[in-house]
């Protein structure tokens, strides 16, 4: 009983995850499934920021850079190669590499949160401008035309490794994405439970104390950042494969803002919160967009302000303490 209580969060995650992976593809309609796949793809991106920001303490306003780079890398590579296996890996490796370079730049000198935020934002804008300016037939990499603000259309889907004719689409892509999400969620939780994970949190809590105990804060942060970059890259790959399309919009400020909202809505400092927040916000936005009741920016912005003013801790921590409260009350009742 105690065992169950201690691991309630994990068990809930497993239960929800299992349902999502096994049951949904059977019962959901094809369009809903398509939409849901997108939510899960973006949830992976949300997880990457929840990890980097909520646990690593790195306020990165450029998580979309790694996402977008992953998407572009995959799109360009798969158009040239045909088989998706290597492009998928490149789509993870290249963003991780960029995160490494950027992280070296950022963490080897004491830079305040604000500087870090602005520099990461600047990098995402650089990508936005550069990809946006790539219209015209001279901007091609192999067979792939970059296409400026129109982006790259007709990106081939992921296929079973070595079998280009076995494409992973619709229900299969959904299952693949859900499994990836589960693996990453579990992996990050596992990582947090290791000694390295404790050091990551320690660095977030007090950099100076961590240093004084002999921990190398710079490499710790760099590692966190690279892992986050790789995860965001994977999400970008899945995104490009899902919509067969990638465009400079992935580098835009609005998109970056969205990632931050997901994490905040769910609650900073939790992993499950990022997933919940992402799915809820995206579902709400999709619904708003379809219902055309109000401008998406208007509603999202208002929600953002209200959230910060009145519910700073986010959904998951809020719910958790509410549950603990209720439990306490039930127990103290005669």
């Amino acid at each position: 009983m105690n065992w169950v209580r201690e691991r309630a969060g994990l068990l809930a995650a497993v239960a929800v995850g299992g349902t999502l992976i096994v049951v949904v593809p059977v019962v959901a309609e094809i369009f809903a499934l398509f939409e849901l796949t997108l939510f899960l793809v973006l949830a992976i991106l949300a997880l990457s920021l929840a990890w980097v920001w909520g646990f690593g303490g790195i306020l990165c306003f450029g998580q979309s850079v790694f996402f977008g780079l992953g998407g572009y890398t995959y799109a360009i590579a798969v158009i040239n190669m045909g088989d998706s296996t290597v492009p998928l890996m490149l789509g993870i490796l290249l963003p991780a590499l960029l995160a490494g370079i950027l992280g070296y730049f950022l963490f080897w000198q004491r830079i305040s949160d604000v500087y870090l935020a602005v520099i990461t934002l600047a990098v995402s804008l650089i990508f936005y401008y550069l990809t946006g300016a790539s219209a015209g037939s001279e901007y091609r990499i192999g067979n792939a035309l970059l296409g400026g603000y129109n982006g790259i259309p007709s990106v081939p889907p992921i296929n079973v490794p070595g079998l280009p004719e076995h494409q992973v689409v619709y229900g299969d892509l959904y299952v693949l994405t859900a499994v990836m999400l589960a693996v990453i969620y579990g992996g990050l939780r596992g990582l947090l439970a290791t000694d390295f994970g404790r050091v990551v949190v320690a660095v977030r809590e007090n950099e100076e104390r961590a240093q004084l105990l002999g921990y190398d804060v710079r490499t710790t942060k760099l590692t966190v950042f690279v892992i986050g970059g790789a995860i965001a890259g994977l999400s970008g790959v899945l995104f490009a494969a899902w919509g067969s399309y990638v465009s400079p919009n992935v580098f835009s400020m609005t998109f970056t803002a969205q990632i931050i909202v997901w994490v905040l809505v769910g609650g900073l400092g939790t992993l499950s919160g990022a997933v919940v927040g992402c799915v809820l916000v995206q579902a709400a936005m999709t619904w708003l967009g379809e219902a055309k009741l109000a401008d998406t920016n208007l509603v999202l912005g208002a929600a953002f302000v209200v959230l910060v003013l009145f519910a700073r801790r986010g959904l998951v921590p809020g719910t958790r303490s509410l549950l603990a409260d209720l439990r306490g009350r039930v127990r103290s009742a005669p």
Partner: protein
Amino acid sequence: MTNPPLLETIALTKRFGGVTAIDRVDFRVEAGELRCLIGPNGAGKSTFFRCLTGQLRPTAGRVRFGGEDITGAATHAIARRGVAIKAQIPALFNGLSVAENVRLATWKAGGRAARTRKTDEILAVTGLSPLAARLAGSLPHGQRQWLELGLVMAGNPALMLLDEPTAGMTRQEVAQTAELVRSLAKERTVIVVEHDLQFIRMVAATVTVFHQGQILVEGPADAVMADQRVKEVYLGQPPTPGAC
């Protein structure tokens, strides 16, 4: 040939803009020594410590530890060589539990089991075992001091720097701390910044007096306390217990 001193500074200087907090300090401590640093407010004691740990980069001069030059080395690298500090304002992992705080400091102990053992041991020594599950951020000041002392002890360092370890402690706790520091100093070198006269007498150490960033006097506790110049820098009075 005698062994080189465990710690030696050569003309160590630290300036903040126009303020010279540490002024050409030549200081040495032998291995196994227990040393007290005293001096009026703003004398530069904490700054001196922070230059030793690499938290501050000295403006000029050198720091040698175990015969090797560590001037300007990264804080974590200096820590790994065996220098540990309890800061004047306790620096803890506020969002983590007391036990987790200690555990993070035990990485030298070895594997998981060894770290757990070490953690329990430190919690017992500092009297924090009953509070192991509390968040460090929720501890009252006195217990924060104990916890930070625990973190410093857990790494089993060759050199311990303690910046006002008894601030905010009760009389009885001061006596306990003095006892603890004495026993710690049996196996390692300890430098303590302390204003508390009772404490200094109890640990019966050599005393170095800082004044305006320079070393004013150095010698056995009683001789230093009797020194006219020391009385003068403390405005004609001996340092009163608890002043800081």
